[in-house]
């Protein structure tokens, strides 16, 4: 034994330490409160101030909410009920207006016998969206589609949908569910056809219309394969020309002739009968679906090496972003009338959709351009070095990554655009927030009711926008898991 032994002795643990819970102050609610709300004098004062403000707001509005009436046929009756129940001077919300005018808020002046049609279109939209939005998760798809099927069929029964159409909807909904379980990519065929089907359900008329619209791209494709033997560029031009020519010159006549041979018509509904959330959602969904691809094309064009294409994209984007949406809507509703031949019937909703699409596509393009710029140059080089051509490189390598980076911005643009659909009130369309509420108030029974319609409409907008925001977070999480 040497003297150094005591200092250099090796250490060997003979009993292992059991884990212990952390001290009380360090976990749970107390710790959270101390760290987040009372971490210093300034923070404590701010916390107390915040609590005071919340208390003030809640105490102020609580009575109003608590005293709400859901069953009445006029504002006076509402007030009567409030006074009878809670005494003289009591204030209360009269949400009965929403219950009574529910259909008007949902469908505008759409013929009430046909309410089932937009309802069915809305339900089937989820069948079309499921394979796009939830391509990876069978479980989410199943939940969404089952809920959609039950709610849609229930609503259609409530709205007295004809039996044949009930059967049709049931087949599509259940069939969609079955396909989603096994070959989800097949469901994309329905997603592609849905826009035409949806338009037909909403506006009605002859099914030959949408069919003839569909014929356009088919003819274009035929032209493309024919001319493609000689020149790729010429083939693209030929395809576009043939398609447009068909749409502009022949489609409507062909549809009319076909209708004469075999009628496939359902009652037609005019655009000025649309209103409420039906209108907002129609414009919003169409705008979203169209502005994303247009935004991608604009973003790519703006980064193109070709001077003409690049400058056209820059001019377009900067012009549209520099002009208020309302100005564009006025152009759509008023100015176009001067330029179009007097007899043309250029649908007002279609015009608004075009303007809203152009508007948000310009913003979309800038958001996506940011994503494109964020990609390292090496990705482009690797794609080039492997021999991928421009479009393949964009589609397979660049866009999947750039779009993923841009998801938050893209969804913000969608949300902004959806809320901007309320601006169509200025071109005489009955969007839910102002026009429809004015229409409701125009009735003597509901004259003087302000807050309740706004709260209701705001609430529905909030649900839809919040849903989009949550979806974008889900998507980001899912994609992040992929790459780590």
């Amino acid at each position, binding site marked *: 034994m040497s003297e150094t032994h005591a200092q250099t002795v090796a250490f060997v643990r003979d009993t292992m330490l059991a884990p212990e819970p952390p001290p009380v102050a360090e976990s749970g609610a107390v710790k959270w409160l101390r760290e987040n709300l009372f971490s210093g004098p300034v923070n404590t004062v701010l916390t107390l101030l915040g609590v005071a403000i919340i208390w003030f707001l809640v105490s102020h509005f609580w009575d109003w909410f608590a005293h709400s009436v859901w069953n009445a046929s006029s504002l006076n009756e509402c007030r009567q009920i409030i006074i009878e129940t809670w005494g003289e001077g009591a204030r209360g919300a009269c949400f009965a207006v929403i219950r009574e005018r529910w259909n008007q808020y949902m469908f505008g002046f759409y013929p009430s016998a046909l309410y089932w049609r937009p309802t069915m279109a809305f339900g089937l939209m989820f069948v079309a969206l499921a394979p796009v939005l939830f391509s990876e998760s069978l479980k989410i798809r199943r939940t969404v589609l089952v809920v959609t099927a039950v709610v849609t069929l229930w609503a259609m029964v409530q709205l007295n949908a004809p039996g044949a159409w009930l059967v049709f909807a049931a087949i599509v909904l259940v069939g969609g569910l079955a396909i989603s379980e096994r070959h989800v990519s097949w469901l994309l065929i329905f997603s592609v056809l849905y826009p035409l089907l949806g338009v037909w359900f909403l506006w009605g008329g002859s099914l030959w219309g949408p069919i003839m619209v569909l014929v356009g791209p088919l003819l274009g494709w035929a032209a493309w394969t024919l001319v493609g033997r000689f020149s790729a560029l010429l083939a693209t031009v030929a395809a576009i020309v043939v398609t447009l020519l068909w749409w502009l010159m022949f489609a409507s006549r062909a549809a009319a002739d076909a209708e004469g041979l075999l009628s496939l018509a359902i009652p037609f509904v005019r655009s000025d009968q649309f209103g409420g959330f039906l209108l907002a959602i129609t414009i919003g969904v169409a705008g979203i679906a169209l502005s994303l691809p247009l935004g991608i094309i604009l973003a790519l064009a703006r980064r193109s090496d070709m001077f003409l294409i690049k400058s056209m994209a820059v001019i377009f984007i900067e012009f549209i972003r520099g002009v208020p949406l309302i100005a564009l809507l006025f152009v759509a509703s008023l100015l176009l009338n001067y330029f179009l031949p007097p007899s043309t019937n250029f649908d007002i909703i279609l015009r608004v959709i075009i303007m809203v699409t152009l508007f948000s596509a310009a913003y979309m393009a800038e958001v996506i351009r940011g994503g494109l710029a964020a990609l390292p140059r*090496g990705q482009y*080089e690797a794609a080039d*070095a*492997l*021999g*991928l051509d421009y479009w*393949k490189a964009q589609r397979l*390598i660049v866009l999947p*990554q750039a779009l993923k980076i841009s998801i938050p911005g893209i969804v913000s643009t969608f949300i902004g655009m959806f809320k901007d659909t309320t601006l169509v009130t200025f071109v005489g369309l009955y969007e839910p927030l102002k026009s429809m509420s004015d229409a409701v108030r125009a009735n003597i029974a509901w004259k003087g009711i302000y807050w309740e319609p706004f709260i209701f409409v705001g609430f529905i907008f909030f649900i839809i926008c919040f849903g989009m925001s949550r979806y974008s977070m889900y998507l980001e999480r899912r994609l992040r898991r992929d*790459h780590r």
Partner: protein
Amino acid sequence: MSEAITREIDRSQMRISDEVAIEIHKMNKWYGTFHVLRDIDLTVHRGERIVIAGPSGSGKSTLIRCINRLEEHQSGRIVVDGVELTSDIKNIDKVRSEVGMVFQHFNLFPHLTVLENCTLAPIWVRKVPRKQAEATAMKYLEKVKIPEQADKYPGQLSGGQQQRVAIARSLCMQPRIMLFDEPTSALDPEMIKEVLDTMIELAEEGMTMICVTHEMGFAQAVANRVIFMDQGQIVEQNSPREFFNNPKSERTKLFLSQILGH
């Protein structure tokens, strides 16, 4: 000298054919007014393993990037596999599908799995059926010794593994020529070896290779010709033995004394 190299390839087995794989004639390139490559003349025969060395900024990367037209040259001729590189897109695509390239920073596609990285180009450029492309990809992943990583994403692999995936990805296009731009300089020492081993194996199979690298051990073990560049020009080229033991130009001597540390 790098300890990463454990063996020298058996040169007696190597065949260098008379067939010309790459011919560069009086090629010049400018970046704006900056003359990066000056009168480059270089002929590479099939089966040759060429190492390009030189100080930073001497134009090594630019030269090999001109060979698959990631950079455009302004005068002179570059003929790869009998196809002259001009602005004709068809020729460029043809050359690119014959020439594989491995980058310093791997440049794998982070949104695709390792297997998808390897099958993407064969499926979309060569139009190989998916099943077959996957079989080929697995073959090459086995060759670079990481078949078990096929379903992972690049971000989940180590640097050395990523670089080997990048090599496998290039090989899946079954190129006749491979270009390497400092494939090991972003790697830790222990990973350098695994990548160099893969490259040595490739050389032994007779692949035509042009490799920019600072791994002089690799140059000695594998190359049949070393090219030294400085200021955009080819200053010296020789067999590795001559190049290292008996450098002719002053610049080469200076460079070698710096890089070899004696």
